[in-house]
């Protein structure tokens, strides 16, 4: 789960990481009010859960409250890569001497957290990683020891931070690590961390991603989820415990297991050729029960592009009879004439196929293998079944 910039920075503030004393506005008038209270020039920043907002014109400098209002008016409601701007952050403009990158993420290779820093702040770390990988300093953080002060000093030394900033830098690094850990974050990033004209460090921009699997114990953070920009179908899927990603094709896919779901998409692409593709990724998860299957089907049917549906269920923990019940239950609620190709295998698949057969629905076709299922679904999408 991604946090907005302002949410991340408020969280940082709780850990005593210095952040600009700005505030959030939902209307141009609020923006003016905040800018007036801050005094001086301010930055108006679109709050969207997507990168590249600067290039898209979502971040602007205003000299005074009038300008802030005007810019907020332009930015609010703007669409940035499909995300509508509902809120802007009004921060006082900072006197920037130098920009640093400081972030923490999980490292798959070592199985532990890694703090990354670079003297080249303000640009995307992926870009630095690409163009000048040596500019990124990494310190592994063992979970039992946590970040040690000497590790922060190692970083400060390696990025050639002037020594007068070491104490402040170490405090910020420690705070960021605590914030990352306490929040079950998979990313906590200050970019840029700036040295200001008066010689202090300031977290000008912040980003946090919270581990979805840990939201059960992060109630406060879970409530911060901004669903206003989220597509309806994905929101419903999430609530039903499904993983759904909308794609531009015509064949709705319902599969159990991420690997098999991707494979099913791959097969549609492989055999479908130009103009035919999967309409979604949808993993009903392990042990999916009837009501979850029904929810999944409703989501697929809500996509007007869908011309055919391919069910590919290979039961392990998921049982074929429950999937069959789920399909019938959903079809009972959401009527459809779309052709459906059902491929059931694995645990209780015989029982499941029997249940489907007994329902005797004319738009349901069965397939014995994944390849056959994919080919039949493609034919159905083309109206050739």
């Amino acid at each position, binding site marked *: 789960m991604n946090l907005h910039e302002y949410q991340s920075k408020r969280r940082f503030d709780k850990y005593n990481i210095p952040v600009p004393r700005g505030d959030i506005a939902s209307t141009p008038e609020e923006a003016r009010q905040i800018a007036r209270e801050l005094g001086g020039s301010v930055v108006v920043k679109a709050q969207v859960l997507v990168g590249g907002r600067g290039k898209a014109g979502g971040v602007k400098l205003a000299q005074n409250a009038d300008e802030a209002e005007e810019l907020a008016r332009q930015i609010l409601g703007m669409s940035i890569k499909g995300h509508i701007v509902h809120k802007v952050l009004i921060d006082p403009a900072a006197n920037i001497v130098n920009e640093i990158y400081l972030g923490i993420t*999980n490292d*798959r*290779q070592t*199985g*532990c*957290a890694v703090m990354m820093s670079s003297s080249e702040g303000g640009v995307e770390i*992926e870009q630095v*990683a*690409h163009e000048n990988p040596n500019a990124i300093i990494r310190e592994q953080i*063992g*979970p*039992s020891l946590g970040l040690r002060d000497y590790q922060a000093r190692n970083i400060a030394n390696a990025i050639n931070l002037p020594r007068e900033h070491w104490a402040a830098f170490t405090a910020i690094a420690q705070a960021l690590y605590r914030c990352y*850990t306490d929040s*079950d974050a*998979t990313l906590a990033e200050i970019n840029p961390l700036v040295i200001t004209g008066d010689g202090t460090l300031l977290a000008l921009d912040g980003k946090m991603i919270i*581990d979805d*699997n*840990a939201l*059960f*114990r992060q109630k406060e953070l879970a409530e911060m989820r901004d669903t206003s920009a989220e597509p309806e179908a994905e929101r419903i899927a999430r609530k039903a415990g499904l*993983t759904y*990603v909308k*794609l531009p094709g015509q064949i709705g896919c319902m*599969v*159990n*297991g*991420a*690997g*098999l*779901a*991707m*494979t099913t*998409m*791959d*097969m*549609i*692409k*492989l055999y479908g050729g130009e103009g035919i*593709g*999967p309409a979604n*990724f949808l*993993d009903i*998860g*392990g*042990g999916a029960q009837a009501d979850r299957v029904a929810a999944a089907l409703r989501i697929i049917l809500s996509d007007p592009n869908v011309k055919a549906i391919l069910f590919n*269920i*290979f*039961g*392990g*923990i*998921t049982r074929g009879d429950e999937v069959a019940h789920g399909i019938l239950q959903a079809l009972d609620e959401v009527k459809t004439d779309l052709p459906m190709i059902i491929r059931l*295998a*694995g*645990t209780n698949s015989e029982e499941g196929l029997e249940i489907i057969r007994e329902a005797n629905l004319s738009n349901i076709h069965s397939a014995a*293998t*994944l*390849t056959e299922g994919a080919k039949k679904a493609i034919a159905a999408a083309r109206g050739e079944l």
Partner: protein
Amino acid sequence: MAILLDRNSRVLVQGITGREGKFHSGQMIEYGTAVVGGVTPGKGGEWVHGKPVFDTVRACVEATEANVSMILVPAPFAGDAIFEAIDSGIKLIVCLTEGIPVRDMMRVYEYLRHSDSRLIGPNCPGLLTPGEAAKVGFMPNYVGKPGHVGVVSKSGTLTYETVAAMSARGLGQTTCVGIGGDPIIGTTFVDVLQMFEDDAETEKVVLMGEIGGRAEVDAAEFIKAKMTKPVVAFIAGSSAPAGTRMGHAGAIIEGGEGTAQEKIAALRSAGVRIAENPEQIPDLLLEGD
């Protein structure tokens, strides 16, 4: 022979009294696995499928001499369940639980590295050794068949798919290992490839990967440097758009790293034959002869 699991494996199930725990232990017993007991704190003294339930892993191990633990407890408790298994001297721990927070797994991973235990998973389908009638996990009982191909996979259902296709063509397996697709797992492709390379009974190996991370690239490097046995692979997700998370925490392409294309290229350059469709895997295995 086989790897990891054989007829001497004595399996305890952490979470045996739960809905899934009960069902899958039943399936395992039916398959022939020596399930010797289970653990659910607070339910010691009960019985499931005629097997005794204990309050602690230690008590279960003392009473049953279990040497393998299958963990199927809810995600919030799974980290502790792994610690308990390690501390109770279990050498092979198979954690099926999905959705364990990464922070918990980082602590588990650190502890595990300094222990004598091996963890398979979490969020994995488990192990199957058809020739020894031994199963730990979710793999459907009928998919396997005794034989000489080792199978290792990140994915669950994709594995069943492939193994079933192999068995249908008469290509049996020594052991099928689902390592799981989470960002932090106990046993990697490389670990399992090494075991198959060392296993006298395994003649060929099938590897099933997917987008995200670089485990398949590590596997390719290992195969190039160390493996003498032929390997056939399939990588799921060639149609996935970049930057999109596909279910598994693992299945996301990060900053241009971890695409199916790049993994396939690495594996090809290590001499691995690549299937375009998992149902082609039997063909590639047979072609080699």
